[in-house]
């Protein structure tokens, strides 16, 4: 797939196979009008989503207790990430199995918010476990523990993952 590029092709089209004689039933004008109305609804729903996200965050994850964990992956890493498990203070916080699309998105620089929860102020233990496969096909497992402190502000924790071939630490905790 070409990226960041308008690939515009001016093509030749055959008239041997007419596309459709649908104009009898629905006019082009109606199609355009419908298309515009669909766009208006999309704008409305996006606006509702924005307000609802803010309401949910305020209601479910107030800033004084909010802890969010984000996962990023070293770009172009041949290592295949299969799953990540997060435990906080010994309790399972989340477990995520990656689809091909999600893995691709992580490798392209995307960052996944894997967990958001509520924790009191003070010191907490974070345990990150990673399961995957190496380029050679061998299974790969890593687990690491970290300590983080939670103050009255929301705490954003970044987990940077890297395969063994990159020369980077396999699991790093980054402060965001």
């Amino acid at each position: 797939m070409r990226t960041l590029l308008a690939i515009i092709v001016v093509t030749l089209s055959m008239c041997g196979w007419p596309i459709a004689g649908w104009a009898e039933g629905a006019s082009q004008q109606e199609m355009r009008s419908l298309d515009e109305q669909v766009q208006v609804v999309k704008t409305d729903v996006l606006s509702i989503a924005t307000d609802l996200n803010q309401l949910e965050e305020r209601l479910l994850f107030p800033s004084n207790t909010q802890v969010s964990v984000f996962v990023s992956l070293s770009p172009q890493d041949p290592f295949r990430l299969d799953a990540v498990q997060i435990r906080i203070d010994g309790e399972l916080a989340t477990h995520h199995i990656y689809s091909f699309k999600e893995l691709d998105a992580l490798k392209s620089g995307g960052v996944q918010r894997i967990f958001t929860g509520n924790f009191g102020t003070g010191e907490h233990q974070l345990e990150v476990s990673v399961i995957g496969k190496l380029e050679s096909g061998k299974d790969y497992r890593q687990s690491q523990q970290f300590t983080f402190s939670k103050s009255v502000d929301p705490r954003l924790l970044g987990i940077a993952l890297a395969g063994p071939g990159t020369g980077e630490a396999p699991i790093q905790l980054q402060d965001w």
Partner: protein
Amino acid sequence: MLRNACWQIALLVYVVAWAPAVLADSKPRDLYFSEALYYAQQGLYFEALARLDVELAQHNGLDEPKLDSLYPFVDSAQFSVGDFELNYRMHLRAGHAITAVLEGNVDESIRNDAAYRLARIQFQKGQLADALHSLDRIHGRVPENIRDDIEFLRANLYLSTAHPDDATPILKRLQGDRKLLGFPEYNLAIAYLQGDRRDAALQQLDKAGAVDASDDETRAIRDKANLVRGTLLLESGQFADAKNSLDRVRLEGPFSNQALLSAGWADVSAQHFEGAVVPWNILVQRNRTDPAVQEAMLALPYAYGQLAVYGRAAMLYSQALQAYGAERDKLHASIDSIRAGKFLKALVREEIRKDKDWVVRLRSLPETPETYYLMELLASHDFQSALQNYLDLEDLRRRLDGWQRSFAAYEDLIQLRRAYYEPLLPGLDQQFRDLDSRRRLRLEQQKILAGRLQNMLIAPRPELLATADEQLLTTQLNTLEQRINAGATPDANLLARVGRLRGLVTWDLKTQYHERLTQFYEHLQESQKAVETLNEQYNEFVRVRQAATHSYVGYDTPIKRLRTRVGEAIQQTKLLMARQGNVLEQVAVAELQVREQRLENYEVRARYAMADSYDRATAVQRQAPQQ
């Protein structure tokens, strides 16, 4: 029966979706922007837009945006909003964010990037003059990675506005560009065709049809170039050259069926009927819903007939008739099923849409005639647009329904919190008031002592640092002195003794003054720490108290408003889905009816041709014994 080679040049512009911007591993980065990219990379543009909109709104509302982690990426984020909107088919809104960058006080290269992106959006929206105007705003420093893209877009705009002479020099220069490989070569041929330079176009198509392709898109455009060249040569009677070009089209590409069909016609036109049999035999084995395959089923026995193999021709006509009949039955069933409303239900099946090959799977589902011809319907741009809108509306409806249900859960949660906290709060408030009065008292004491220390540093007052025993002793000595002095004749000896004792206290106070002052300072510091702890407890209490209140107060109005908005949006979405679904059904039925008509026509031809072939085969058989 020869295929009516009616070709026309159509300026059909298609744009491969732009992949969203990729953040390199540059740290630090903005988490929320990166999260939006995570969704966009998966094609989840609604989620990406919802997140990025919030992040940009919060960034723009900051007093000091320079301190925000998004600040270094804000232009890129604005660009991405435009890309996401475009990919989410929100053409009306796309470009607003980029226009804001363009009109802001930004660096020259960022402004040029914004102008290019805006032009790209305008081009996709069909605003060709605006797009050219946006490109004309590019001056000075241009980011290296988009230099060729800008020129390519400019050339395509010239082509779309029927200015091939302006497009030609640009496309010539862009030939061989690794990133664009195949596309400038092909479009240059189209520019020549637009400019009525047929020979140059054929030469250029030959070149475009021989590019060294390593990815699917370049291979597809190379196939397209060969197919177009072959078709043009076929039209002008250059059958051998046409065949050569058509043979260069891959057997498994998106243009292979059409190329096989045309290759057969090239041979037939050159009276090489044996040659036509080869591609058409391959073609008739393929999916029978494809128009090229259906035509080949009629063309193949025609070629055998021309080769005087009448028996085989008659048998193939018979098979074609059977196949056409079966396909017509399917078309009938499809049309009936669509009219019964099953088509729309099949399209929105969730389990199917989770599969990346959902179109193929829909077609192969048992007992679902409404989707047999879906792949063919998808070839129509109108159908694709209508289908995509319908699927988007369905996605919105599901979201809205989910949100509508969640409001009741939020209200339960709020009610539970209210029931828990409200009885507790009066007691907590009393404790808070006690704590507060103790804190205030401590603060006052601390203030007085601090003032005393300050004064003693200016004017020493040892008596203020006397211990409790010393203070008691001093008081007793004062009392004794008063009593002695109260007598008629005060005893000088006793007064002297009291004076000596007072002197003893004064000696200690004066000689230990500095030591005591230091102790006083240290004790004051310790006391300060205790006050700070008290203050922390106070602030923590205030925060917890506020958090308790905020967990259930102030939500009623926003929830009520959102519930109304969601309800209205559901109504609007359902209404539009009904209208869009109706259009979709009409388009599908109209398309299938055209196909049905064509099959009917083929059937008539096949029936006559079959009878003719049987007659000829019988005649040949009769003649054979006589000979």
